[in-house]
């Protein structure tokens, strides 16, 4: 059986006798050996009492509330705002560990940008037969409005979130690419600021590379992709509004970049430009970092009932007077079906072997693979091709027979809407939970910025599944976050 993106290795970790599930790699301690990157943290944890950790936890929660790093829950009429739980024990990566993640993420984003620019223009990869035409043009996320669009520098995904999981010291898998409106970077930044405020002693003991230059790099990226290079561009962040769950992040990034935060109702198109309705004269926008989905951007070309976007926006883009970050139509490159094709893109566009592996993936649209999936539901993770947020998926090993039978029917109803992957033993990190310090599964989302260069700060968002044994890290499913440290080179020498 052939699996796209399988690479050469399907790691089958040892399993625990009790559960039959793979044993997770503990990033802090491999057997009796302490990871060198965790030396100082281990020492600190040995001396930190439960009370100290609890005080830190409370202090962090209070700070998050004061800062308003909260989100409203859709459908909750009480108006209560909630926090995403923050774990006070950081995750630590040595410089070499990070370097692998960095190189692999940059490689991936370069290939994905080349792919997007190609499929909406020359389609060389399709002409070369390296990827089936149907896989692209038959994808419901292939965006007709993006055809022929060539944004500045050929860059379509200026901000990308690459979701990674780890199963062994040098073995990372890409879980998915996020090329539309990846969120969460403000948590990366606020988690660090919170740890520095509450536990400064940890930062005195070792050299943790900073992440707070992210907004500055984001601004630089936006400037680099402005449509007219001859003048200082006007940049704005487009938000759906204060009710959006990521509104804090929209404000945060606009504020830290020193640019305006706008809503669709603040904008209008005229004379081939996009304008802000100011107190004084209107002001033209050159680069719009939009945090709303394609569907809502322009009622003239997408959903006609959208009140969040601006009529005529896409025409301004076509006239070359506005860069949208990210560009429209990126969904075709980051859905779970196209995911399988990324290793091939890397080879085709960059002439390189993938640095980061894809998780072996079974396409239910292929009869032989569907048959395998149905026979192994109890050990696979099955997902909807266009799903996100951890919703609508089946985690085989933790599911009941009834759940599997029900899910089986869903898959059989529409096989092409599902893919399946082996249940990976996501690595664990020490986490402060009600019972004390215990290992919990984590993933990693670095944020990759693509302008004239592709770059990222030495840090990422770590999401942690707080429930014992859970592999689902999504905040919508009870996951939390951790500060993620990358140590300076000398720290791991």
């Amino acid at each position, binding site marked *: 059986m052939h699996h796209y993106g399988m690479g050469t290795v399907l790691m089958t970790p040892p399993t625990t006798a009790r559960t039959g599930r793979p044993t997770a790699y503990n990033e802090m301690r491999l057997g009796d050996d302490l990871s060198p990157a965790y030396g100082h943290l281990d020492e600190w944890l040995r001396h930190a009492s439960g009370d100290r950790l609890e005080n830190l936890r409370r202090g962090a929660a209070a700070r998050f509330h004061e*800062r308003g790093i909260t989100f409203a829950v859709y459908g909750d009429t009480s108006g209560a705002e909630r926090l995403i739980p923050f774990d006070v024990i950081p995750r630590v990566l040595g410089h070499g560990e990070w370097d692998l993640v960095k190189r692999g993420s940059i490689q991936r984003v370069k290939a994905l940008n080349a792919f997007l620019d190609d499929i909406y223009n020359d389609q060389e990869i399709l002409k070369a037969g390296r990827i089936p035409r149907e896989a692209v043009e038959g994808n419901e996320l292939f965006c007709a409005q993006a055809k022929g669009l060539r944004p500045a520098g050929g860059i379509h995904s200026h901000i990308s979130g690459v979701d990674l999981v780890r199963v062994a010291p040098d073995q990372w898998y890409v879980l998915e690419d996020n090329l539309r409106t990846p969120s969460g970077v403000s948590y990366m930044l606020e988690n660090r600021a919170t740890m520095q405020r509450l536990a400064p002693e940890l930062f005195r003991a070792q050299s943790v590379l900073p992440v707070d230059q992210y907004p500055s790099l984001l601004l630089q990226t936006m400037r680099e992709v402005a449509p007219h290079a001859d003048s200082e561009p006007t940049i704005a962040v487009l938000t759906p509004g204060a009710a959006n769950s990521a509104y804090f992040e929209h*404000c945060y990034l*606009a504020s830290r970049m020193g640019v305006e935060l706008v*809503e669709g109702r*603040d904008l209008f198109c005229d004379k081939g430009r996009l304008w802000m309705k*100011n*107190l*004084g*004269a209107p002001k033209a926008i050159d680069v719009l970092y939009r945090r709303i989905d394609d569907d809502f951007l322009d009622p003239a070309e997408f959903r006609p009932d959208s009140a969040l976007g601006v009529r005529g926006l896409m025409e301004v883009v076509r006239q070359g007077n506005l860069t949208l970050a990210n560009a429209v139509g990126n969904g075709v490159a980051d859905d779970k079906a196209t995911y399988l094709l990324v290793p091939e893109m890397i080879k085709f566009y960059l002439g390189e072997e993938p640095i980061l592996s894809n998780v072996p993936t079974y396409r239910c649209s292929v009869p032989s693979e569907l048959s395998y999936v149905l026979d192994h539901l109890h050990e696979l993770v099955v997902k909807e091709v266009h799903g996100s947020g951890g919703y609508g998926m089946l985690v085989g090993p933790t599911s009941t027979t009834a759940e599997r039978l029900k899910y089986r029917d869903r898959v059989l109803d529409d096989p092409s809407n599902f893919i399946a992957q082996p249940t990976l033993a996501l690595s664990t990190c020490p986490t402060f939970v009600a019972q004390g310090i215990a290992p919990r599964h984590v993933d990693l989302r670095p944020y990759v910025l693509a302008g004239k260069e592709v770059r990222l700060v030495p840090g990422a968002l770590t999401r942690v599944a707080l429930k014992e044994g859970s592999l689902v890290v999504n905040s919508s499913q009870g996951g939390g976050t951790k500060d993620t440290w990358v140590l300076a080179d000398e720290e791991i020498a």
Partner: protein
Amino acid sequence: MLLRLAGNALWLGRYLERSENLARLVGAVQGMTLTPEYRGRVEGPWLDALAVVGGLKEFTAHHPLEPDSAAAWLLTDRTHYSSLFSNIRAARDNARTARHLLTDELWEAINGTWLEIQNIDATNLPDRGIAVTCAWAVGRCQQIRGAADDLLRDTLPQVILLGQSLERSDYVSRLLSVFLRGDMAVTTTPPEPGTIAHRRWETLLEAGALLETYRRSHTAHIDPVQALTLVLAHPTSPRSLVVNARRTLSALDGLSGPHHVPTATQEALQILVDHLESLPPFGADLPGYLLKLGQLADAVGLEASKILD
């Protein structure tokens, strides 16, 4: 500055000012009802306080007027727009919309106040204390104003100040229209300390944050003529009506470009200022003067609601 955010900034200024004024009003009325002059007759002052904030009908339709019930409603009610809780929530909502324009300290001062007031309700207010809660709210509003002082002197603080001065003008005129009734009729004869009339003048000045100013400028014995002059027409007091009407005019003039301020607003304000600057000799046609003042203030309020709309 975006037109929409200018609207948010204006209302931020108004709701913060309204919160502070309400806390001062409740604190002053609460103090008044504890005096011997008002023993057994506390309903009147609370009805006045409710009337000042426009909540009289709503409150009396649903609640019996009992000791502290009006104060609890004015401070903690979750549903009525005129409570302190609702005003702080509205200030915070407007600040949140314009958050990226605010300093972190200003935002956290506003958001912290919102977080704290959510812990105050009618059940724990007696333990916490009405006066303590009012003082807390006044203190938080002043802290917020202090934090706003660090904003770059551009359009944003100008619009916040516009909201503040508009609201302050409105509040002073409401205070006067409610308090200058019946036994508060202004006479040239000062009331005796210890009388209800004297206590009401004290309360009016305290609610308008002018009692200490009055004592320093004059004496502890309140002369209605001097008190009314201070409230209405003192040329430098930051709380007098004329100063705030002038400030409002000046802030409107300062907004450059097509700033969506109807000229009728400025015209109404100019008429009000002219009226305030022609304060007649007391005892002459003061009731008529005050009646006209109320009408002019209402006209300003009506026009002001269209600013940045």
